[in-house]
């Protein structure tokens, strides 16, 4: 088994790590770096709870290998807020009550950040298509879609926080 040295930036912080090839990204983020907002649920890339961004692209941390993040920027739910100052997507989820148990929420929010970076003003249908791979077993999706559309408007009219996502 070969160990792979890698430098990776996680939520803006540079790390020099050595990982075995079979280490998954979720193991690296949770067990090495303590980022417990990355949730493992289905473990087969279907549910989206473990969604994180690698160079702004959404991936399933449960199945992507950690070494694939070498030289890249990884962003997790922990990297969105500035202290108590929430990211506009987080604010919209709170204001619209777009969560119940909250387990799917970090993945929902990271997928939303990726969607809005790519398509700042999606239609409701575009939101549903993009978010099809993020599963919530509590609330249904109505409030989630509403929150995403509200976040899109909020980002378009100027974010309240210093970080526009």
């Amino acid at each position: 088994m070969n160990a792979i040295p890698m430098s990776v930036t996680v939520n803006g912080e540079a790390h020099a790590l050595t990982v075995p090839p079979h280490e998954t990204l979720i193991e690296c983020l949770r067990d090495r770096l303590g980022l417990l907002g990355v949730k493992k649920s289905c473990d087969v890339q279907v549910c989206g709870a473990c969604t994180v961004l690698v160079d702004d692209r959404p991936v399933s941390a449960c199945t992507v290998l950690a070494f694939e993040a070498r030289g890249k920027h990884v962003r997790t739910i922990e990297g969105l807020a500035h202290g108590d100052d929430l990211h506009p997507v987080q604010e919209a989820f709170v204001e619209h009550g777009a969560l119940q148990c909250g387990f799917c929420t970090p993945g929902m929010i990271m997928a939303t950040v990726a969607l809005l970076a790519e398509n700042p003003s999606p239609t409701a249908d575009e939101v549903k298509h993009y978010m099809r791979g993020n599963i919530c077993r509590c609330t249904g999706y109505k409030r989630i879609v509403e929150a995403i559309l509200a976040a899109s408007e909020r980002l378009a009219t100027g974010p309240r926080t210093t970080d526009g996502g």
Partner: protein
Amino acid sequence: MLRPFELCEPASVAEASELLLRHGEAARIYAGGTELILAMKEGLIHYDYLVNVKTVPGLAGVRLDADGSLRIGAATPHRVLERDPSVSERFPAIARMEADVANVRVREVGTLGGNLCFAEPHADPGALLQVFDATVRLERKGGARTIPLERLFVGPFETCLEGDELLTEIVVPPLAPRSAAVYLKFGFLERPSVGVGVAVTLADGHVADARIAVGSVGPVPRRMRDAEARLQDRPVADSEAALAEAGRIAARASDAITDLHGSAEYKEHLVGVLLRRAFQAALAAVAGSERR
């Protein structure tokens, strides 16, 4: 949990081929990993060596040839094909099919070549690409061959690739003028239960060429030539009855398997329904493009 393995990162196709030759059954090509790593995590398969082909220069990317063919590097992620302007303009059916593969995270990471080589029967690209008469380039150290895509698939999870061969490129020729392709699928799980690809070429009110491929239903995606023959040379206005018969023939020929995705009978029914809808949508697409 994944069992430990060694990662090999070749700098060329020849080097990758040599690694496959050296390690034999203990090695497997690794591209996006969206299928392979899942199966390895489940403990269904194990390899001591994964050969990462994403480090091989030139294996990813999309370009249009002078003759209008689309040349897709095997390590090109689905998401690139979904969003590439040359694909959506010249091969809209492929862009649309790609936009509905699994979910966005799988499409960001998973590659077209990996999808084809894994030969999971419940997949979309293998069926649609066959109605374009797509070919695949297989390379090994010191040699290369190009074969029709339909010959790549041997059985579930089985291709005709030799032990030291790699799929390097998928070539999709353009359809003739007055043609359109459509892919329709149905499923209630992440993977499709049934997928039907159709390409139609019209001339003088007749079906000059009809191509049909069915995927996910049987062990491999395949062309349905007997069903195609029922539609060939028919007047468009008179295609309805032939379409029903083509649907029945394709359903019988699809080798439908009862599994988690539905009973064989159910899938056979869906083949007929999707074939009719796809054919009609393709006719409408040709008419639409001529009105523009």
